[in-house]
């Protein structure tokens, strides 16, 4: 993969996607080099299953190859697009009954081993300190709702049920929490492009 990728090492993500549209496999290889780790990490975190996470990674990049026009550079970064795709596909799997049962069993085991901490999950991020600070700045209800919805793969209605709170409250907390996170990160000079 190293040899064929040389022409694209310095290309922007947008340039890579255009090249992928021209059937340049080396461009996809470079996109994989840049983002597959994040895609895999998110899928594995959501699915708690390495094998299925690999399948998601494979699916996400093959989809990018087959239909690169789905990426709109005016709507965000390539990484954001790939992770959104990853999240959506992973959630689809999570919400299947069989997957849910297996996942709940795994989560029960994991929580027995010490629980789950969202801040710990992002500790290794390049700018983890800023992200951690932003998370800690959220109201507990906002943070909890985002955690369960994003990393738990639950709908806001399921989150509301789990937390025993009104659906409207949870819905609003997710939205306000994301806005607060964004504001905190912007004030700290952090953007997804630097992550």
């Amino acid at each position, binding site marked *: 993969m190293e040899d064929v990728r040389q022409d694209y090492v310095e290309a922007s993500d947008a340039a890579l996607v*255009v090249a992928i549209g021209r059937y340049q496999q080396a461009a996809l290889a470079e996109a994989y080099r840049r983002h597959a780790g994040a895609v895999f990490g998110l899928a594995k975190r959501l699915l708690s299953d390495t094998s299925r996470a*690999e399948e998601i990674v494979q699916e996400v990049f093959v989809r990018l190859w087959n239909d690169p026009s789905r990426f709109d550079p005016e709507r965000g970064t390539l990484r954001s697009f790939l992770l959104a795709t990853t999240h959506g596909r992973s*959630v689809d799997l999570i919400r299947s009954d069989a997957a849910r049962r297996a996942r709940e069993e795994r989560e029960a085991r994991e929580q027995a081993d010490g629980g789950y901490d969202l801040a710990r999950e*992002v500790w290794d991020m390049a700018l983890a300190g800023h992200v951690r600070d932003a998370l800690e700045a959220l109201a507990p209800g906002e943070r909890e709702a985002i955690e369960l919805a*994003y990393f738990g793969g639950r*709908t806001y209605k399921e989150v509301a049920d789990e937390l025993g709170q009104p659906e409207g409250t949870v819905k609003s907390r997710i939205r306000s929490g994301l806005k607060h996170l964004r504001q905190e990160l912007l004030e700290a000079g952090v953007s997804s492009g630097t992550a």
Partner: protein
Amino acid sequence: MDDMTDCNDIYELDELLGAYALDAVDPDEARRVEDYLAINPKAATEVADHREVATMLAFTGMEAPDDLWDRIASELDDGPEQPAPGPELQRIIHATPTVAVTPAVPAVEPKSTAVRSLDDARQRRRWSSSVAWLAGSAAAAIVAVMAITVVVTDRADAPTDPLAAAIETARADRDSVETTLVAENSDATADAVIDQDGHGYLEARALPTLTDDQTYQLWGVVSDAQVISLGILGPNPELETFTVEGEVSALAITIEDAPGVIADGNPDGAFVGTF
């Protein structure tokens, strides 16, 4: 969206944007939000912002398994075959007086003989307007055909742009080769330079802007006098770069139907330059 006149609906949909961005809504709600986003750019921007935030939360610093790329690569479609351009373009290119310059690019065996038709690709892939815009003007287009790869990169709008500096460096290198592409029926020209490492630069700002349904296409004459497609430049090319592997004796730019290559090439009004 029929029920969008109700302010309560709008409020409810706005409140759903965060949950929607995290895939935390029911399918019916997702469809309602998507209809809403289609008519409300501000809401669409908010969702994009939420997803960018989620992107940062999602980063775990993990690496994908080593062998996973091989599995992905085995699934990729190579794309359709690209027919060679017709003889008329070859005639025009070869009829242009040749400047006696020794090509500095060493002959290299082609990596692949696979030639792809972007015309076919056009039928197979419907580009969003934004990506097509990228391909045509602002960001980048990368096309590789046979032994030659053309990498169209971001425009160099500022003199301090690294690309502009690279061009100046290439022009100053005595081992580089340069040509000016001219056409019989136009005063506009385009300048190309290829350095000794095979990095090519095309300054095409002077070419007239085409309509959206047209595009400039770059061609090259390689060994054995074969004319091959080098890539799509878009309707308004500016500063483009390309990497050449193998000997190139001439370049040509033609006007084609957007978004890309046609089988025969359109020699009418071709800009041609020889090395």
